[in-house]
């Protein structure tokens, strides 16, 4: 992975771009119309997203269309979900252990 996926999706504009492109593939111009920023600024955001493979591009004639790459997003999502779940499971077990410790002895 060339780009940094955490950083990529930390930005609200880039998240908005992902949402738009997830609904429908778009050219950079069509995308730029949805934002109050310059075309250049949108291009920069697109590059960040493409660098970490959240977007893929496809040339149609002379135009470039950007597509959402759900696989990448899923991988990221899975990892975070998994990582978080790992901690939740671990802590639920600790809750149970603490209940047992509490009933074993009531000092401290």
């Amino acid at each position, binding site marked *: *992975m060339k780009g*940094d*996926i*955490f*950083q990529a999706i*930390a930005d609200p504009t880039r998240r908005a771009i992902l949402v738009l492109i997830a609904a429908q593939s778009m050219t950079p111009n069509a995308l730029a119309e949805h934002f109050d920023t310059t075309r250049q600024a949108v291009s920069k955001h697109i590059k960040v997203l493409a660098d970490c493979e959240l977007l893929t591009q496809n040339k149609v004639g002379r135009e470039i269309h950007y597509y959402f790459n759900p696989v990448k997003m899923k*991988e*990221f999502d*899975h*990892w*975070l*979900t*998994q*990582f*978080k*779940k*790992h*901690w*939740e*499971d*671990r*802590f639920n*077990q*600790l*809750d*149970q*252990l*603490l*209940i047992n*410790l*509490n009933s074993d002895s009531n000092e*401290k």
Partner: protein
Amino acid sequence: MKSNLLMNFSVDKENSRVNVEREFAAPVGKVWAAWTQSELLDQWWAPRPWKARTKSMDFREGGSWLYAMVGPEGEEHWAKADYKTINPQKSFSAIDAFCDENGTINQDFARSTWTNTFTEADGTTTVSVVIQYDKYEDIEQIMQMGFKEGFTMALGNLDELLEK
């Protein structure tokens, strides 16, 4: 017992850090014991169906905890924590590592420094865990390893999630 125990989880990209915070319905003495005594750690550290099995524990500054995460098929992932600072019932820090059963560190994987802070209020103890990596790429490496190897565990849980 409070039924809604707080849990916060965040990835702090700027500082290459993962923050986990959780409340426990017990006084700090018991929570501290659960985090620092191997016979207690073995009971909760690994999410089911994995089990943690301690090989050696020396909970003091400069000491370490060597343990295996044992899977349902008997597969073992060895890890250790080298304790750096200990302030009893307040905080401790350790550097973790993947290793073999003799504690020889696997250099292929990034190590991270854990700082665990314990604070008690009204019989509830909050544990704050800060996992500090040297650089952001290390988190990515762990993340990518997670895709390939199921982040050491909790695969069954993930499968359930994916089916939904």
